[in-house]
């Protein structure tokens, strides 16, 4: 009788998925390193972008009460604010999605669950980013 006792939920956590171990078997990418680096750099950039955005939208010159169709149209007539909003949208979306990707990897136990959650996450990222980008570039102040 040497079999290790390893049923789920007896140690408060499930059995480690030992057969999945592949330490040392490099798959030739530094993806995780670049993801890690991206989280730090995009975080710094977002501090400036988001705080600037909040300042303009909510504090300066009457704050949130002056925001209307005309205000948005005026801002997006300038390529500077278009790029600002675009960069903020993309960085925030990818930054947040990467954080969720990491959380899903950490917490899901079954490969199937992980796959579907990651797929839903990826779909939501594509949807939000494409719709957001579309609006920023095709916004027409004359449409009603």
């Amino acid at each position, binding site marked *: *009788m040497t*079999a*290790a*006792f*390893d*049923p789920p939920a*007896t*140690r*408060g*956590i499930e*059995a*480690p*998925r*030992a057969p*999945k*171990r*592949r*330490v*040392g*078997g*490099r*798959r030739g990418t*530094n*993806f*995780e*390193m670049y*993801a*890690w*680096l991206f989280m730090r750099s995009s975080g710094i950039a977002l501090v400036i972008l988001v705080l600037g955005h909040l300042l303009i939208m909510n504090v300066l010159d009457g704050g949130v009460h002056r925001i209307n169709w005309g205000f948005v149209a005026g801002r997006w007539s300038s390529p500077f604010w278009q790029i600002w909003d675009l960069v903020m949208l993309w960085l925030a979306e990818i930054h947040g999605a990467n954080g969720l990707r990491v959380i899903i*990897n*950490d*917490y899901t*136990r079954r490969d199937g669950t992980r796959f579907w959650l990651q797929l839903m996450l990826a779909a939501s990222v594509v949807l939000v980013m494409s719709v957001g980008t579309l609006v920023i570039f095709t916004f027409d102040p004359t449409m009603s």
Partner: protein
Amino acid sequence: MATTADDSTQVATAGGTGLPGDLPPVPDGAVMLTVHIQRFNPELDDAPHTESYRVPALPGDRLLNVLHYIKWYIDGTLTFRRSCAHGVCGSDAMRINGRNRLCCKVLIKDLIGDKRNEVTVEPIKGLPLLKDLVVDMEPFFDAYRAVKPYLITYSAEPTREHVQSPADRARFDDTTKCILCAACTTSCPVYWSEDAYVGPAAIVNAHRFIFDSRDEGGRERLEILSDAEGVWRCRTTFNCTEACPRGIQVTQAIQEVKRALMFRRI
């Protein structure tokens, strides 16, 4: 002694006749300590359960003395690992009151308070449980082996010895202290949920060679640790640093490996 159910604790009563099989006399100043131990016998039990023991202990005793008392005088079937019993061999890491510690370094006086004379002892988490407080350490050592924890050199051998300056030696001094007790790795929440992660102990031992001026295998180790299951899974929760019985700054070592990877500069 027969095992008892649930909360009826097994009490050692002092004998004192000096005959074999008798309990040793309770020394002056001893307190009665209730020890809740997670027990599991793979041949009898479907799942682990907790058994409680009341034993006399001196405040200056180590928890290991208490486990010995239980094994020697109350229930000989209690199974746990220990070897040197002095915090060097790293055999007796266990979860004591929910924290990973070496039971040979935990003093009773640090466990008891004015109102509390209880302590909970469980096996370390994240490794397959074999019996009582004994876990299968093989997955842990697999991760350790994966980082090539030995000196690698490619250049010509020096005629006498590998000379190293005190400053170069000091660079990796902290990580030479590791005793492979697994307290850090089994306190890591990432390791609990995904044991393909190499874990803090393996990274500490990679750090010990990566930053050794005599070693030339740093690049290979960094490549191994840049794997998806390598250092980038670390979330800097500092559980490892808190758990290390040798006081190694484990999280700092992991971050230093990350930095070396970023700049490929050793």
